[in-house]
């Protein structure tokens, strides 16, 4: 039953000049799950993300979203379908205010984004919804701040608020806790848990503590190919995974 899967890839392959970055990856992302994509550095996790959102074009293979083939669609069109991604480095608009960041996302559905002859005051009607979204990620007090002045953790929270503004069916989060201190990691992890209600999340994550806490399903990539899949217990018990991945990150497992 493919309807249970929000997103499926079939035999996805990406080759760069003589080097196969993504090798025959067939993913199935079940609706409502938090699905984690893990693996050692260079395993191809971010490349898979780029393929799913068409920031890169697959060499071969198919991507299905709700059973429809979206392999040939453009990045922006895929986003409009409801697959919205984040980036490894915080994806915010630094010189816009925090409120404006969220409004840029809300604005899309207004259909006025080409109206250069109108005053931007007509966007003020989106402010209530934008503030609501900011409050949901704990940024209510920062609405008027310039985004460039926010701390790293808050930028990531803002990014999630902006993504939520699009009400995506599927959120793709690329290392949402990368480069964060302990407190921030917990804040963001809780935030992801909270926003995962009613939607599906696919995340690349290095922090296994976060993965064990959040993920319903885990896919382990190694050298571009799927090594194994399953829940945290299954995956972490797999000796091949321990060798390929957990071995180098044993500290994090204990933590």
């Amino acid at each position: 039953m493919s309807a249970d899967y929000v997103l499926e890839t079939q035999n996805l392959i990406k080759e760069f000049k003589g080097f196969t970055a993504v090798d025959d990856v067939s993913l199935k992302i079940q609706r409502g799950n938090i699905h984690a994509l893990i693996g050692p550095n260079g395993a191809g996790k971010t490349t898979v993300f780029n393929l799913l959102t068409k920031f890169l074009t697959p060499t071969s293979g198919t991507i299905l979203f709700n059973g429809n083939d979206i392999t040939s669609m453009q990045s922006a069109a895929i986003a409009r379908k409801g697959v919205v991604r984040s980036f490894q480095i915080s994806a915010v608009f630094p010189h816009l205010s925090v409120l404006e960041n969220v409004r840029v996302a809300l604005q899309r559905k207004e259909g006025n984004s080409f109206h250069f002859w109108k005053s931007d005051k007509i966007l003020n009607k989106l402010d209530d919804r934008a503030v609501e979204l900011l409050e949901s990620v704990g940024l209510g007090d920062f609405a008027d701040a310039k985004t460039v002045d926010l701390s790293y953790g808050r930028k990531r929270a803002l990014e999630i608020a902006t993504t939520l503004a699009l009400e995506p069916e599927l959120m793709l989060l690329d290392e949402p806790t990368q480069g964060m201190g302990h407190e921030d990691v917990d804040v963001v992890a809780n935030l992801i848990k909270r926003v995962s209600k009613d939607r599906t999340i696919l995340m690349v994550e290095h922090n296994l503590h976060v993965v064990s806490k959040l993920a319903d399903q885990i896919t382990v990539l190694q050298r571009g190919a799927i090594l194994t899949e399953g829940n945290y217990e299954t995956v972490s018990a797999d000796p091949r995974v321990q060798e390929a991945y957990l071995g180098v990150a044993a500290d994090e497992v204990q933590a």
Partner: protein
Amino acid sequence: MKISKFNIVLLGLALVAPFVFYPVLLMKVLCFALFACAFNLLLGFVGLLSFGHAVFLGTGGYVTGYLMMNTGLTPELGILAGTAAAALLGAFYGKLSVKREGIYFAMVTLALAQLMFFVFLQAPFTGGEDGLQGIPRGHLFGLIDLSDNLNMYYFVLAVFLFGFWLINRTVHSPFGQILKAIRDNEPRATSLGYNVNDYKWAAFVISAALAGLAGSTKTLVFQLASLTDVHWHMSGEVVLMTLLGGMGTIFGPVVGAAVVVGIQNFLSGGELGNYVHIIMGLIFIVCVLAFRSGIVGEIQKIVKRNFG
């Protein structure tokens, strides 16, 4: 745009200026100010450095000049036609160039502009090296005689204010909001579902049209359309004006244009006339090294630091 006391004072100054300064010089400043503002829309608010913007200035000028000489069109229609021609060219060139980024975008715009430079040099109706000379200014709406410098000045001022208002509106519009988002983080704008190239293209067309408007108006002021206006020197000069004044600020390009035109005018009369390029070069170096946000940008910083 908010009508503040500051703007009213500026408008008042602009209205009495022709009684203090030579009107033709002021008109030149206004035309270049509009040109620089149009350029700044791309550089300052979308982050696109076009290195061929003179082509739109020149195309507007040549088309208006040709029509005024050969068809007896009234000046407002002549200017409209020149602006439309620049917009059309911008639509075409924009489609070809906005797919590229950074230095590649600059090079593509330069190459396309050079293409048109040779058209204007070789085509039978452009007067070759001489350009189009003795273009009549005509009667505005068939009524107001523009050969009178004072009439012409107020007309140019009105054209400038319209262009300046439109750029302001564009910057502070729902569309402008998306442009700024693209400038700040293009992949993110894409991931939010915006086809960024379409927005860049639209901004490119608006900028080209307004550059054409500046060129058309300038042609009427000097009654001349020449290769100088399509030459890549001119494309470089508008970069200088914008950076000197402060890119990404509303008034920066106006100040930059006034300073550059003012200096050129001042020097060309004196013994230093031969060194004008060297002196402009030195100013540019000082600007890049010492005050990168430009004159207006630096003033804004000081105001913010002390009164903000």
